[in-house]
């Protein structure tokens, strides 16, 4: 049986990990390879690197980072942030990323999803959706890091992305993100039920209970979290042990 996945997300700026760098045991705080290895050893099922580098120039250095991670970490990893074109996607995949996640560019140019999935395969095209609740059971898509409304219904957009060729949906609840009060279960359940591709839930993880809840009640195929892992509050092992005890299958 397919296991549910637990995925740590690492924010990268100028090729350095900018959150979770306070692990005392790390020799080189902020080194994406060292952190990636640490999470892989702890039992992470995949990694997501989110490039938040502001300047376009410095973005190029992330390619070298991807190459180093691919040579040293042997679990799948996704690179997101600033992916705008087929060329960007090809560069990342050639450097060794297993998947790329596309957010703003997918909304601005939905054709990019279909062109990319035709050229590289759906399996490596993750469409990231940032959704904000606007009324009861209605969520709107936001782009540009949550600053700009896309004027799209989130459920409609998830279905559309699937139809265009997305292989997975990375769904972030903007309302829950950063609150540590749990994922948006209703949103996750609605999207997961609307599409026939895997859904990675993101935003709001505060403890192992919330991750178990989004996998079970939210119907997510994977739960992504950042701060609860980075600040050493819980290890991946602890989360997986808890999730397993709730009767959810995860990899040992």
């Amino acid at each position: 049986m397919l296991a549910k996945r637990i995925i740590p997300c690492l924010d990268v700026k100028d090729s350095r990990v900018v959150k979770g760098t306070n692990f005392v045991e790390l020799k080189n705080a902020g080194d994406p390879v060292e952190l990636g290895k640490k999470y892989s050893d702890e039992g992470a099922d995949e990694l997501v690197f989110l490039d938040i580098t502001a300047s376009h120039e410095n973005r190029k250095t992330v390619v070298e980072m991807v190459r180093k991670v691919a040579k040293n970490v042997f679990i799948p990893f996704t690179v997101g942030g600033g992916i705008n074109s087929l060329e960007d996607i090809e560069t990342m995949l050639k450097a060794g990323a297993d998947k790329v996640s596309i957010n703003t560019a997918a909304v601005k140019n939905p054709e990019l999803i279909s062109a990319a999935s035709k050229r590289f395969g759906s399996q490596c095209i993750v469409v990231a959706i940032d959704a904000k609740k606007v009324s009861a059971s209605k969520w709107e898509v936001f782009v540009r890091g949550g600053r700009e409304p896309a004027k799209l219904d989130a459920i409609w957009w998830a279905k559309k992305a699937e139809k265009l060729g997305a292989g997975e949906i990375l769904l972030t609840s903007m309302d829950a993100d950063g609150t540590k009060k749990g994922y948006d279960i209703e949103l996750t359940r609605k999207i997961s039920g609307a599409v026939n591709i895997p859904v990675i839930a993101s935003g709001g993880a505060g403890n192992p209970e919330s991750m178990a809840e989004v996998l079970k009640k939210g119907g997510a195929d994977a739960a992504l979290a950042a701060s609860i892992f980075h600040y050493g509050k819980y290890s991946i092992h602890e989360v997986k042990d808890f999730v397993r005890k709730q009767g959810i299958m995860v990899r040992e």
Partner: protein
Amino acid sequence: MIAIIDYGSGNVSSVKNSLDFLGVESKITSKPEEIGAADKIIFPGAFGYAMEQLAEKKLEGPIKNAIKNGKPFLGICLGLQLLFGESEENPGVKGLGIFRGKSKKFSSGKTPQIGWNEIKPTKNGILREGFMYFVNSYYVVPEDKGIVAAESVYGNRKFACAVENGNVMAVQFHAEKSGEFGLDFLRRWVDAR
């Protein structure tokens, strides 16, 4: 020297990375003479117009010869499916036909299957019970059940995730992306024979 066959498939470099990490000498190549000269062969595969690429690069002959000559051969993912005669993915396109049978699309569960699935070996060999990383919408249905080396379950379907016959081993999962467990398997395959 291990030859990793390059026909434009996506995971060639990740297979190379994993062998480098294990300290095993390997070369990515599409040259028939290098494939002929290699001690062992890895036939990777992810997405792509695989059979067209193999024909264009004139690799069908060298692959079939290597298998016939008893060279240790490891197919991965699409490199497993291409060893069979046909696939629902590309009706009418003939595979390499090393094994009888076909690839069928999953009819339950989300597709593609993406993630870690448990494999259960059905024979004594280099496979162990545990989790491997899968990315596939199709699974192989061998006519000769005797070649099945491991099984997994997806949706309500039990499927062959590894086959083995003499010098040929082929797996549906990405061992090169399956952490320590996957690297251990690759190490055992490299060390065998």
